């Protein structure tokens, strides 16, 4: 059973030879490869090789062409500020507080901003790995992309001050995620993870999620499935207990859950959905390796009878994480 087969079986809640190891290692791959984040995020070939090296180092089952949450906004003309060792920030939003999203046009992923970096990385990773391991792409979900277009505070105030305009921004962001995601599938991604941290109940109420975001996320996931994705994956960090139960209706085959929820609670809310999580991401900075290993073993044991589990972190493992902590997570599986 190779890495991709292992993950695919887990997504269908079928038996696997061992729990798939799918930690959210993005910028950490740059650190492992001795690259600055700035270079990693601008060079698809370098990103691909760094991801493959990180996979080999930690013996994980997946590689990711995740860049940062500025990609979509940048492709539409937003100004980003880059640093050598940090992800970029949007410093000039595409839309002012009073702007109408109708003036935006969908970008062409083959040429807009750094979208080609992602596509190049996916092509290279797929060529190198074929179907031996999961090659995953990434898009920002509708709320996160809208927040990047307007700025998070302006986007949230629109929810109350001008709901039709926020709805228009969410609809545009939905089409944007679909177009960019389909381009990633064409470039070789087996699946495209939909990240929507701004949809978390830490930011918007569950009622808002169900009314405004769930239908649009459902459209994104359905389009990705229709475009050939091997499975769909929704990744929302934070305290998602109030929304997790509707992921199955949205059409998510895999659902990330963060450290706020226990394995038992997540399983109760999504009994027939593959779950990915939920090690605390900041534990990878400071926690001793034995702590990470104990937590990881606890998760594997918790899902032992159920299956349908990908061992991961609830959010990104920080780029500056201690390698020993990540290795400890992998070691927990080797002792299965």
């Amino acid at each position, binding site marked *: 059973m190779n890495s991709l087969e292992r993950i695919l079986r887990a997504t269908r809640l079928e038996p696997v030879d061992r729990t798939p190891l799918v930690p959210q290692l993005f910028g950490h791959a740059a650190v492992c490869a001795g690259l600055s984040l700035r270079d990693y995020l601008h060079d698809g070939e370098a990103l691909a090789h760094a991801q493959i090296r990180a996979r080999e180092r930690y013996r994980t089952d997946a590689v990711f062409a995740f860049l940062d949450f500025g990609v979509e906004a940048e492709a539409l003309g937003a100004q980003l500020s880059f640093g050598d060792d940090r992800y970029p920030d949007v410093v000039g939003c595409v839309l002012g507080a009073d702007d109408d999203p109708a003036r935006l046009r969908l970008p062409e992923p083959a040429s807009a901003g750094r979208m080609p970096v992602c596509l190049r990385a996916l092509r290279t990773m797929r060529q190198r790995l074929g179907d031996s391991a999961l090659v995953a792409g990434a898009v920002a979900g509708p709320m996160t992309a809208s927040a990047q277009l307007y700025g*998070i505070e302006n986007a949230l105030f629109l929810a109350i001050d001008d709901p039709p305009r926020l709805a228009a921004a969410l609809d545009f962001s939905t089409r944007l995620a679909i177009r960019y995601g389909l381009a990633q599938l064409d470039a070789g991604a087996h699946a495209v993870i939909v990240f929507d941290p701004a949809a978390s109940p*830490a*930011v918007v109420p569950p009622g808002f999620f169900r009314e405004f975001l769930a239908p649009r996320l459902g459209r994104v996931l359905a389009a990705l499935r229709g475009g050939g994705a091997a499975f769909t994956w929704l990744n929302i960090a934070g305290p998602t207990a109030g929304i997790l139960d509707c992921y199955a209706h949205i059409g998510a085959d895999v659902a990330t859950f963060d450290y706020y929820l226990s394995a038992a609670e997540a399983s109760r809310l999504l009994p027939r959905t593959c779950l990915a999580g939920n090690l605390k991401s900041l534990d990878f900075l400071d926690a001793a390796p034995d702590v990470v290993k104990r937590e990881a073993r606890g998760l594997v044991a918790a899902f032992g009878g159920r299956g349908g589990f990908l061992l991961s972190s609830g959010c990104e493992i920080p780029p500056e994480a201690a390698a020993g902590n990540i290795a400890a997570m992998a070691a927990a599986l080797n002792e299965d």
Partner: protein
Amino acid sequence: MNGPHSSGPSTEAAFQPLVDALLVGDHKLAAAVAQHLIEQGCSREQVVTDGLEHAMGLLDDKCTVESFNLLEIMLVGRAVSAVVRVLYPDGYAPTEGRATFVIATLEGDVHDLGKNIVRMVLAGKGFRVVDLGRDCPVDDLVGAAQREGAAAVLVSGLISPVVSQVRKLRPALRACGLAHVPVVAGGAALKQLRPEALDVDYVAENAFDGAHYLERHVSGAPTT
């Protein structure tokens, strides 16, 4: 503008429209009602105590760890800010708030939404908050704490690189003779770590949790 000893309507009913406007997040109505109350003879202190603090108390009760979202708090916070601008167009003077805190998002982190929420919550509770903004060097924050006579230093962090900056705060405060000034941290990244791992006095689960700690601190009550 009314002075601290002016009198006016002080019944709960008189302030209910302001509390209602604040809780539904209608910033324009809240500012208009506050202006009306002042014109009716209410003191600024009354508006803060019976209006802002009362509304923030109700919101506080509603926002548990399990039920806390930024959208609702931002809306109330925006309304609070609008009322504070009516009452104190130039902001709270150093002698006017219950205590002064300095707050920032430290160098390397430009995400300031969480910080802004904390600032609005504390303003609604009658505290003076000096906001050093985002991407703020540790030395600037410590300098502001010294200059403003801050009762506490507050930092918010969404991303992990800011952890190393937070750890520099305590030694920098100590070097300036401010070892007695507590440091409170919060935000999605920082709240995953324990106070001793960050070398701070308290890690807040959310804005209200942090405010509770600070209220205990300034009142001299035990903080643990």
